């Protein structure tokens, strides 16, 4: 029953997508019964949302009820898995995650149509048709290579349960949905760009204004997803790191870079009527890079810890990427006259220049990471050798660009549009420069001899000061003009120009994360020892004492843990319990480190090995200063993005 309901819903969705995504735009283009077909295109979006919702709920219901007659449930379900992890295994493997993707896309499409339902013109009808075309691709996957609804016969009594890595931590409920929301959200700007080109409205600023807000939303969600992914890796994989330039990490980072570039260059287009063609390319590029990322991670083409799934789906993605690229090229070529810049760069020292440099650096960064990620594929195809690109490549290539971006983040807000004045800039830079020198000396005094660590701290300090200074200068000016208290002036300042100050808040979030990353990389210390109960291991200022090794049975797994006390002056101030979780589906245990966080940093402890009789255990202790600030910075970034994009009436 459940299966048939979901199957029918998905077939209906496919038909609706054909009607709304192919027939409707063709009829609109021919101009026959225009109003009627516009209504049909809109209705198709709502209908698609309704049926995909039904199919998704049916799948969740089947998972919860352990309906093993459905192939996807038989693949990821298990009676022993707790209900919560059973339901979120909707996105735990390929087929379910494609269904979830289709649902997120349907949700975005319905939201786009609903928020613009009274908008005249053909931009939104064409954009919704483009969204339905993308939906059509996912519907084809869902009835084809990624069909989650095959009938299983005979019906198994139980299943293997989700991938152990995916049911070991609560962040698995957070990171994938955020990533889908961010990734799929990039379809919306693409649909607006394509819609504007199809409707011939690309010269108007309308679509750019609409797009900016949706991009900001998707960008905030993608940012949160990347940082939640780092956190998950840190909490689950047991190596005490959060970023390894793994292909899957890169796949989420690459479109983030182009989206970030767009959010900046779009301001230049709005203010100066420049970079129109470039912006369309960034929007198309970001969308294609999300598809490429999905292709890389979901096709199993790159072996990686994250490549859980394999199948023929890769070819479909490649074909779709080709369709999108060719279609976009044709649309851009057909509108080339309309992309002319009306404005021009007036002076080398201006905010425009910093935006251009920012875009250049972000593009270079995107290209570097992309090449580094794809290089093993190229090498294997061309030279027949199996290689991987080591972390040193990524670090050496990206660190100079990243510290330069930190520096620009400080300069940009301080410069005016059109013509900057060197003396004004110098004056504004004094506090930032003092902070930079101070931080650099502190870092050197603490013993770091890495150039990039010193530069990262200096430029992060500089940029933080410069961005905070913008708030202070603005509030002071209001204070004297309107006779307000500093607090009131600050609130009204931000309310009066949320876009701008939201952007500065996001900058501060990035800088806070940068501090966390720089400190935890430059000042990380670790130690490992095999301890008998009562013995201690000292790393830096932390002394850990093994209390006991224990084990327990849980319905879906066996757990072996070590109780380790952190002692100072003979008293225990914290107890950590790093564990190993043994799942029946995995030949190796899943490390489950335990972390003690303080604002100053983390004490990270992992159980590496133990004697079967519990007579000793090998534990690793890693001290990482300021790590929690990476996650906090992520929160601040999202806050800034929401402040900037939240649709509210402006308060003067």
């Amino acid at each position, binding site marked *: 029953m459940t299966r048939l309901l979901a199957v029918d819903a998905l077939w209906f969705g496919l038909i609706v997508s054909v009607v709304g995504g192919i027939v409707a735009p063709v009829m609109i283009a021919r101009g026959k019964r225009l109003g009627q077909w516009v209504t049909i295109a809109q209705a198709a979006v709502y209908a698609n949302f309704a049926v995909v919702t039904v199919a998704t709920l049916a799948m969740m219901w089947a998972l919860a009820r352990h309906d093993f007659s459905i192939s996807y449930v038989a693949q990821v379900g298990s009676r022993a898995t707790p209900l919560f992890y059973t339901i979120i295994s909707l996105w735990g493997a390929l087929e379910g995650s494609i269904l979830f993707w289709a649902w997120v896309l349907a949700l975005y499409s319905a939201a786009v149509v609903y928020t613009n339902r009274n908008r005249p013109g053909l931009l939104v009808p064409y954009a919704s048709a483009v969204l339905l075309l993308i939906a059509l691709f996912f519907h084809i996957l869902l009835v084809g290579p990624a069909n989650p609804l095959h009938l299983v016969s005979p019906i198994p009594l139980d299943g293997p349960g989700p991938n152990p890595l995916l049911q070991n931590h609560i962040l698995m409920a957070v990171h994938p949905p955020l990533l889908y929301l961010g990734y799929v959200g990039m379809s919306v700007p693409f649909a607006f760009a394509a819609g504007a080109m199809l409707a011939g409205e690309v010269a108007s600023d309308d679509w750019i204004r609409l797009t900016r807000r949706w991009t900001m939303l998707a960008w905030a969600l993608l940012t949160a997803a990347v940082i939640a992914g780092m956190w998950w890796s840190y909490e689950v994989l047991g190596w005490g790191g959060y970023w390894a330039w793994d292909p899957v990490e890169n796949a989420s980072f690459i479109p983030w870079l182009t989206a970030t570039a767009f959010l900046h260059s779009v301001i230049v287009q709005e203010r100066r009527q420049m970079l129109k063609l470039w912006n369309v390319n960034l929007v198309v590029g970001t969308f294609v890079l999300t598809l490429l990322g999905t292709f890389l991670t979901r096709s199993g083409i790159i072996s990686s810890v994250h490549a*859980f799934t394999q199948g023929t789906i890769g070819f479909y993605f490649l074909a779709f990427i080709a369709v999108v690229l060719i279609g976009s090229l044709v649309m851009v070529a057909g509108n080339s006259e309309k992309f002319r810049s009306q404005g021009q760069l007036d002076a080398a020292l201006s905010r425009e220049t910093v935006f251009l440099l920012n875009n*250049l650096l972000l593009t270079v960064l995107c290209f570097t990471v992309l090449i580094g990620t794809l290089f093993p594929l190229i090498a294997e195809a061309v030279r027949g050798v*199996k290689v991987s*690109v080591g972390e040193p490549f990524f670090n050496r290539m990206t660190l100079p660009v990243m510290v330069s971006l930190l520096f620009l983040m400080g300069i940009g807000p301080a410069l005016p549009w059109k013509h900057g004045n060197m003396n004004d800039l110098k004056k504004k830079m004094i506090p930032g420069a003092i902070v930079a020198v101070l931080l650099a000396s502190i870092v050197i005094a603490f013993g770091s001899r890495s150039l990039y660590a010193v530069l990262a701290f200096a430029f992060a300090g500089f940029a933080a000061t410069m961005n905070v200074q913008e708030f202070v200068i603005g509030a002071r000016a209001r204070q004297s003009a309107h006779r307000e208290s500093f607090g009131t002036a600050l609130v009204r300042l931000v309310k009066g120009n949320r876009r701008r100050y939201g952007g500065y808040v996001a900058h501060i979030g990035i800088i806070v994360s940068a501090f966390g990353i720089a400190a935890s990389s430059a000042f990380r210390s670790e130690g490992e020892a095999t301890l008998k109960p009562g013995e201690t291991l000292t790393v830096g200022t932390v002394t850990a004492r093994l209390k006991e090794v224990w084990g327990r*049975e849980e319905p879906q797994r066996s757990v072996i843990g070590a109780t380790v006390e952190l002692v100072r002056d003979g008293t225990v101030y914290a107890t950590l319990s790093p564990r190993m979780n043994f799942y029946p589906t995995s030949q*190796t245990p899943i490390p489950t480190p335990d972390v003690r966080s303080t604002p100053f940093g983390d004490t990270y402890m992992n159980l590496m090995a133990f004697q079967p009789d519990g007579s000793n255990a*090998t534990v690793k202790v890693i001290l990482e200063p300021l790590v929690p600030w990476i996650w906090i910075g992520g929160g601040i970034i999202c806050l800034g993005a929401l402040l900037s994009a939240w649709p509210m009436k402006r308060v003067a």
Partner: protein
Amino acid sequence: MTSPELGSTLAPAKKRPKAGIIAMVVVLVAAFGWLMMGNLDKNVVFFLTPNELLAKGTEAIDVPVRLGGQVKAGTVTWDEKALDLRFDVVDTDGKGTIHVQSKGAPPQMFRDGMGVVCEGRFGADSVFQSTMLIIKHSNEYRAPKAGEKPQEMYKSLMKGSGS
């Protein structure tokens, strides 16, 4: 890029800054491409089996390598105090023995015949210094054999705990 006279007049600077910026972009992109190719060349890590590594001879000494093979039965020694792990890795055909030394505890399920990937460098002393040890296991589900289940292997621990 910091010429103060540009900011002082109203004169619309015509093509000059634009051309300058394009030239700058071209130079930067070229430099970056050159840097990137050079860095890729230096930082590519080859994935080799023991036979392939030995076939490379001196060329393979002291360059980063990912060595993939099987743990040769009966060669594993583990000094838990010094955290010193030594074992031999062989190809699937049982040939091409390479001695591996690794710092740190072996993975919990580490045992003879298991597929491993060691990241590290092959030294001139013919010992492969591994900095990272990964167990290679198939994604396919395989029911544990008798005695392989953790609740059987660690029975005494399971009993010893009330929590």
